[in-house]
C-alpha cells in the first residue's frame, strides 16, 4: 500500500513500507546466532533436575547419597538448601503469586515434572546419570487434572479453600439478564473446549547464571525482555545488594512462554549463587513439552440473543481456564470478556470467569492469550447464521461496528474508535468470490465431495502502554558514532521478529542513512531503559514510534550542527544516503562522518552551548491502546471417507496500520495462522486421568509442518493509526483469528451432516463421527464428581485420598436472637474498626486497609492501598456493608463494594466496572 507520509521526517517513505530483506537472516540462518546454549563461561557446571513422576502427593524422603558420590557431581540441591534465599515467586505484573511456591518442591509435588532436586555436575550427561540415582519416595494422592476435577476435587494447594485461582464477573444468576437473553427471537449457544497448548519455541528455556564478584549477578537467559527479567529477578530475590544484569542476544521464539523466569531458571540462578560457580541449565524437549508452563486449556459457553432481523441484543459467557498448579499469575483471563464483542454492536454483555488450580503444568501466556473470545464468538455467529437462516457474511454486516458507529464505548465501557473490522471484511470480499465458491460447493456435493468456506472478523488490542504497570512505553537511544555509523539501543527484543531490520528501517528513514549503516542492539538489561520486551504486539507500535522520534530528534541535531558549520539555514539542510547537503550548494556536501567527527571532537566548532556528540534518546508512550482489525476467509475440503481436512485457500485481510516492512508483517500473520491451524487440527498437550502428560515428544505433540500450512494470500486493508508512524501491532492476530476461520470452514463443509462440536483439536476421528453420524463416546466423568461411579468398585476397595483431610467448613456463627435493632447494634460492633482486606484484581491480589465507623444504617470509612487513600460513605444492614467509590488508577472506573462481616473475618465482592466482580477477603487488624 502507499502509506501516507505521517513521519514528517527526512526522505519520508524511503525505508518504511519497503519489503527489504531482513538484516539478521544471514547470521541466524547460517548458525551464527548467539542463543543461551551458545554461552560458555569458564568453570561452568551443568544442571539436571529430578522431577516428580506423580501429579499430586507428599514427598516422604529424598535420598541423595548414591547420586552425590557419582563422578563429576558437584552438588545435589534440594529446597532445604535454597530456603536461605527467601525467594518470592512473582507474576508477570511483578506481584507475588497467590499460593505458597518455592523454586524446588517443598514437601509436596503438584504436577508431573515438578522439579524436586537439582543436580549439578561437570556436564549434562553426568548430571542426568546422577539424577537417575536420586531416590525420592512419594505418597501419591488422587490428582486433580481437568477443570471438572478442579470444580469437585480436593484443593490442589493445602493453603486454599478451593481450586478457584481467580474469579471475575457475576457468579450468581441474574434473573433480569436471563430475561433479556430470553426476550430475543433467537437464542444461540456455542460451546468451545480448547485443548492445552505447548508454546513449543524452537529454542527451549535455558539459563546461564554467574556471579561477577559480589557486585553483579550475570544472567544469560532466553527471554522475551531482558529488562523485565532483571526487574523480576531483583524483586523476586528480595532486592539483593548487587546489580542483576540479564543478557539474551538472540532468542528462538517465546510465544508467551518466556515472559519471565520460572521454577527451573530461578533454581539454577540460586544454585550459581550458592555454589559460586557459573551454572547452565538448558531445557530439553521433553522438559519443554511436559514441565514448562503451558496455555489455553479452557472451556466457554457463550450465549447470544438476536432479534428477528439477526441483530444482537445481549450475550452472556461462562468461562473456565485451567491455571495448572503454578500459573505465572492466577488468571481468570479478563481480556476474553473485554474484547468478546468489541468489534460488534451489542447493547448488553455479562459474564462469569474462573481460573482453576489443577495438578498440571502451570499456565503461561500464548500468542493472543484471550483468543478464545474470537473463536467462540465467530463460530457462534456462523452457528447463528445457520440457525436463523441468514448468510454468515450478512449476519456480520448487520452487527459489526463500522466507521459510522465510532467513536463509541462497548457494552463493557471500553472506549472504541479507529477500528475497521467491517471494512476489512468488505475488502476481503473483493478478493474472495463467494458466489462462485457456493456454485463450486454445490457441484462438489453432488460428487460426494465436501467443500466449505469460513469467515471470521475481529479486533485486537495492540501496543498497550500506560494502564498496566509493567506495560510501559519504550526507550530508544540513537547515536551517530564518530565513524558515521548509526547504533540504536532499544528494548523491543526480537524473538525472531525481525526488529533488527524494522527498527533500522524506522531510524534510517529519519536520519537519511543507508540501512546497512544502522545497527539495533536490544538484548542486554545493562543498556537502554526499562520496557517489557516482546509481548502484546507492541514492537512496531511502541518501539517503532520510539525509533522514529529518537531518529527525528537526532536528525534535527545533525542539521543544526551542519547548518552552523556550513553557515547555512537548517531548513536548507538535507541528509540523503549518509551525505549532508545544502540546497543549491552541492559543493558544500559533507559526509555524516565528517560532521560526526567534529560534533564529538571539536566542541569549539559547535553552536554555543550545544552538547557535544550526536546522540538522542526519547521514551515514547503511545495511545493507551491501538487496535488492529482483520477479516479472514478459508476454503477447505473435508474427505468424507477419512475425516481429513485439506486447506485449499486462505485469504487474510487485515488493517495493521502503516507497514514498516510488508514481508515482516506477512511473516507474522503466516506464523500466527500456522499456530492456529495447529490448534484446530493437530496439537494437544493433554494429560491422562492420573495427570501423566500424553505428549512428551514431537511425535505425539503434533506441530503443523510445512505440508499442513497453505500459501496464504494477503489483502492489506490498512489505515494509519493514531500512534507515531501510524503503526498497529500484528504479532498475535493470526493466532487469534486463524482458529475460528478454519473451524467455520470445516463446519460449513460438514453442514449437510449436522453441527460440529468445537472440541479441539478436530481430529479425523471427531470429524468422521459427525460425517458418519456415529457420535464418539462422551468424555469420562471426573472421579471427583458427586455422580461418579467407580467402574472398579466391585473388585477393588474404594480408594481413599491420602491427602489433607477435607474439613467441612464450620457453619457461620449465628448471631444471638433478639430484635432487629439489637442485631444491627451487634453487627455495628462487629464492623467498626480497622480491617486488612485483599481484593483479587485481574493483575493479582491487591492488599488494602479499611476503617469503618457505623452510625445507624450509615457507614463511613477510609480505604488505603498502594494506589492511595480515599474516603467513602455507604449503607449498613445487619452485618452487610455496601458502598461505591470512583477511582482513576489503573483506569477510571466505579468500584461497588458489598462486604459481609462475620466475627474477625470479612468476605464479599467488589464490582469493578468492565472488569466484572472480584472477590474480597479480610481480617480484623
Amino acid at each position: 500500500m502507499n502509506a501516507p507520509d505521517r513521519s514528517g521526517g527526512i526522505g519520508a517513505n524511503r525505508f518504511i513500507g519497503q519489503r527489504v530483506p531482513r538484516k539478521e537472516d544471514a547470521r541466524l540462518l547460517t548458525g551464527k546466532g548467539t542463543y543461551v546454549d551458545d554461552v560458555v563461561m569458564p568453570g561452568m557446571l551443568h544442571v539436571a533436575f529430578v522431577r516428580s513422576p506423580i501429579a499430586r502427593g507428599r514427598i516422604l524422603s529424598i535420598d541423595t547419597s548414591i547420586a552425590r558420590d557419582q563422578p563429576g557431581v558437584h552438588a545435589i540441591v534440594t529446597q532445604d538448601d535454597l530456603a536461605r534465599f527467601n525467594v518470592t515467586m512473582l507474576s508477570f505484573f511483578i506481584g507475588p503469586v497467590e499460593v505458597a511456591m518455592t523454586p524446588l518442591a517443598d514437601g509436596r509435588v503438584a504436577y508431573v515434572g515438578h522439579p524436586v532436586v537439582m543436580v549439578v555436575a561437570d556436564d549434562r550427561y553426568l548430571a542426568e546419570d546422577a539424577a537417575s540415582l536420586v531416590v525420592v519416595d512419594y505418597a501419591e494422592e488422587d490428582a486433580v487434572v481437568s477443570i471438572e476435577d478442579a470444580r469437585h476435587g480436593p484443593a490442589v494447594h493445602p493453603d486454599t479453600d478451593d481450586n478457584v485461582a481467580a474469579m471475575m464477573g457475576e457468579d450468581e444468576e441474574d434473573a433480569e439478564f436471563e430475561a433479556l437473553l430470553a426476550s430475543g427471537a433467537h437464542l444461540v449457544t456455542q460451546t468451545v473446549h480448547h485443548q492445552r497448548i505447548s508454546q513449543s519455541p524452537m529454542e527451549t528455556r535455558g539459563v546461564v547464571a554467574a556471579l561477577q564478584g559480589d557486585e553483579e549477578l550475570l544472567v544469560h537467559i532466553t527471554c522475551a525482555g531482558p529488562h523485565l527479567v532483571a526487574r523480576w529477578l531483583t524483586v523476586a530475590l528480595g532486592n539483593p545488594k548487587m546489580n542483576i544484569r540479564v543478557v539474551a542476544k538472540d532468542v528462538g521464539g517465546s510465544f508467551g512462554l518466556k515472559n519471565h523466569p520460572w521454577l527451573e531458571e530461578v533454581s539454577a540462578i540460586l544454585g550459581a549463587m550458592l555454589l559460586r560457580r557459573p551454572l547452565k541449565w538448558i531445557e530439553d524437549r521433553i522438559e519443554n513439552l511436559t514441565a514448562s508452563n503451558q496455555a489455553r486449556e479452557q472451556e466457554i459457553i457463550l450465549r447470544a440473543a438476536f432479534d428477528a432481523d439477526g441483530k444482537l441484543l445481549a450475550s452472556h459467557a461462562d468461562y473456565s481456564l485451567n491455571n495448572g498448579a503454578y500459573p505465572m499469575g492466577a488468571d481468570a483471563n479478563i481480556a476474553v470478556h473485554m474484547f468478546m464483542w468489541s468489534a460488534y454492536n451489542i447493547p448488553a454483555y455479562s459474564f462469569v470467569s474462573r481460573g482453576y488450580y489443577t495438578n498440571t503444568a502451570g499456565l503461561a501466556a500464548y500468542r493472543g492469550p484471550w483468543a478464545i473470545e474470537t473463536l467462540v464468538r465467530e463460530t457462534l455467529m456462523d452457528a447463528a447464521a445457520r440457525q436463523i437462516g441468514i448468510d454468515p457474511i450478512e449476519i456480520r454486516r448487520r452487527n459489526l461496528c463500522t466507521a459510522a458507529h465510532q467513536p463509541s464505548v462497548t457494552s463493557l465501557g471500553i472506549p472504541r474508535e479507529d477500528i475497521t473490522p467491517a471494512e476489512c471484511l468488505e475488502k476481503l470480499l473483493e478478493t474472495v468470490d463467494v458466489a462462485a465458491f457456493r456454485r463450486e460447493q454445490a457441484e462438489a456435493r453432488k460428487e460426494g465431495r465436501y467443500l466449505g468456506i469460513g469467515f471470521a472478523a475481529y479486533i485486537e488490542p495492540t501496543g498497550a502502554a500506560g494502564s498496566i504497570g509493567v506495560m510501559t512505553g519504550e526507550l530508544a537511544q540513537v547515536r551517530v558514532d564518530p565513524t558515521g555509523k548509526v547504533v540504536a539501543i532499544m528494548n523491543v527484543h526480537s524473538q525472531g521478529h525481525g526488529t533488527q531490520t524494522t527498527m533500522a528501517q524506522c531510524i534510517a528513514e529519519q536520519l537519511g542513512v543507508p540501512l546497512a549503516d544502522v545497527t539495533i542492539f536490544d538484548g542486554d538489561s545493562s543498556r537502554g531503559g526499562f520496557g517489557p520486551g516482546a509481548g502484546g504486539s507492541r514492537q512496531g507500535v511502541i518501539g517503532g514510534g520510539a525509533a522514529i522520534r529518537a531518529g527525528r530528534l537526532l536528525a534535527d541535531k545533525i542539521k543544526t550542527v551542519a547548518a552552523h558549520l556550513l553557515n547555512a539555514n537548517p531548513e536548507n539542510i538535507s541528509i540523503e544516503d549518509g551525505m549532508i547537503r545544502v540546497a543549491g550548494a552541492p559543493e558544500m556536501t559533507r559526509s555524516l562522518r565528517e560532521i560526526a567527527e567534529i560534533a564529538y571532537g571539536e566542541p569549539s566548532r559547535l553552536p554555543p552551548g550545544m552538547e557535544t556528540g550526536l546522540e538522542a534518546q526519547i521514551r515514547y508512550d503511545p495511545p493507551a491502546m491501538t487496535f488492529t482489525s482483520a477479516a479472514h476467509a478459508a476454503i477447505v475440503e473435508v474427505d468424507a471417507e477419512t475425516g481429513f481436512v485439506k486447506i485449499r485457500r486462505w485469504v487474510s485481510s487485515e488493517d495493521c496500520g502503516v507497514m514498516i516492512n510488508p514481508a515482516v508483517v506477512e511473516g507474522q500473520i503466516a506464523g500466527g495462522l500456522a499456530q492456529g491451524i495447529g490448534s484446530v487440527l493437530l496439537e494437544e498437550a493433554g494429560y491422562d486421568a492420573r495427570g501423566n502428560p500424553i505428549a512428551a515428544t514431537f511425535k505425539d505433540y503434533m506441530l503443523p509442518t510445512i505440508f499442513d500450512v497453505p500459501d496464504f494470500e494477503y489483502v492489506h486493508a490498512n489505515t494509519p493509526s493514531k500512534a507515531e508512524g501510524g503503526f498497529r501491532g500484528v504479532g498475535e492476530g493470526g493466532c487469534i483469528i486463524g482458529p475460528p476461520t478454519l473451524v467455520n470452514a470445516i463446519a460449513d463443509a460438514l453442514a449437510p451432516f449436522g453441527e460440529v462440536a468445537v472440541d479441539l483439536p478436530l481430529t479425523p476421528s471427531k470429524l468422521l463421527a459427525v460425517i458418519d453420524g456415529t457420535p464418539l463416546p462422551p468424555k469420562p466423568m471426573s472421579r471427583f464428581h458427586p455422580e461418579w461411579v467407580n467402574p472398579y468398585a466391585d473388585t477393588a476397595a474404594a480408594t481413599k485420598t491420602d491427602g489433607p483431610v477435607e474439613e467441612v467448613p464450620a457453619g457461620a456463627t449465628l448471631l444471638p436472637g433478639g430484635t432487629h435493632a439489637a442485631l444491627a447494634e451487634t453487627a455495628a460492633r462487629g464492623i467498626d474498626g480497622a480491617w486488612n482486606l485483599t481484593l483479587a484484581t485481574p493483575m493479582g491480589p491487591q492488599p488494602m486497609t479499611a476503617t469503618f465507623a457505623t452510625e445507624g444504617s450509615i457507614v463511613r470509612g477510609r480505604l488505603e492501598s498502594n494506589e492511595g487513600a480515599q474516603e467513602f460513605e455507604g449503607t449498613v444492614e445487619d452485618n452487610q456493608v455496601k458502598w461505591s467509590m470512583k477511582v482513576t488508577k489503573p483506569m477510571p472506573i466505579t468500584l461497588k463494594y458489598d462486604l459481609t462481616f462475620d466475627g474477625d473475618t470479612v468476605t464479599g465482592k467488589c464490582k469493578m466496572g468492565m472488569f466484572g466482580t472480584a472477590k474480597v477477603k479480610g481480617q480484623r487488624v
Partner: protein
Amino acid sequence: MKAAPYDYVRPSSIEEACTILAEAGGGAQVLAGGQTLMPLLALRMSQPFILVDINHIPELQGVTSVDGGTRVGPITRQNEALVDPILNRDLPTLIRALSHVGHHQTRNRGTIGGSIALGEPAAEMPATAVALGAKVEVRSASQTRFIPADELYFGPYATAIEPDELLTAIHYPAWPDDTITLFREVAMRPGDFALVGLVGALTVEKGVIARAGICWFGMGPTPMKAKSAEVALIGQSIDTLDAAATADLAIADTAPFGDHHATADYRRTVGRRIFVRVLQEALNMRQAA
C-alpha cells in the same frame, strides 16, 4: 535428555559384529541409520552397554538380483533404495511404500534393515516385507538362519531376532510383471507413522488373481497380514470380485488400538474404506489397461 553411558564399537565385518554381539550377552544394541535409535538413546529408553555401529560393513550395503528375487543389504539407505534401478524394476510395491517412510531428510540416513529390525507396527517397511513374502537373513557367531517376515514380529518392537543375531539381508521374492500394487496410508501429517496403512501386491493372470500379499500397518501390535483376504482373493476374476466383502475379511485380521490421535473404531472404519477404494482403483486401472 542425554544418553546413558555406553561403549561404542565399529566392526568392519559381519563376523566381527557377530562376535561382539555374542560377547555382549544381550547388552549390545546395533546402530544402523539411527533415525529411531538415537532418540531412544537420548530418552534413555534404550540403555545398551555397547553400541555396535554396523555402518562400515560393506557386505551389508546394496541391492542385488539373486536367483528367485532381490537381496537388499540392511544398511542400504532408504533414499538410495528409492532410486535403485533393480528395486524400481522388480519391486515397485516397495518403492511406493518407501516414498512414505519419514521425510526426505530422515531417508538420507534411515535404512531398510533398520526399520525392519526395529519392528514399529505402524511403519511401512515391516508391513511391506510381510506383504511381499520377504525373508530376513540373520547371522550369529555360530549360524545363519532365515526368518519369514510374517514370523518376525511378536509385538511392538519385539522381533524373532535374538540379541546375538545380526540382520544381514532381506530377501524379497520375485513378483511377476503382471503384479499391481495396493497402497494407501492415512497419517496425521505427511511423514508420520500411519493411523491406518495398507500395502499389498496382487498378481493378475488372464483376469484372475493368481497371487496376493496384503498387510496392514498401524492396525495392531505388529504388521497385520490380511491372510483371510489373501486366500479369498486368489482364483477370483477381477471382473466379478466383491471388494466390500473382501474388505470385511481383511478388517477381521486387524486388532487396532485407540490413542489420542485416533480411536480404534476410526482405524477399522477407515481401514475398511481404504481397502475397498484401493482395491477398486487398482482393479479399474488393470481393466482399463
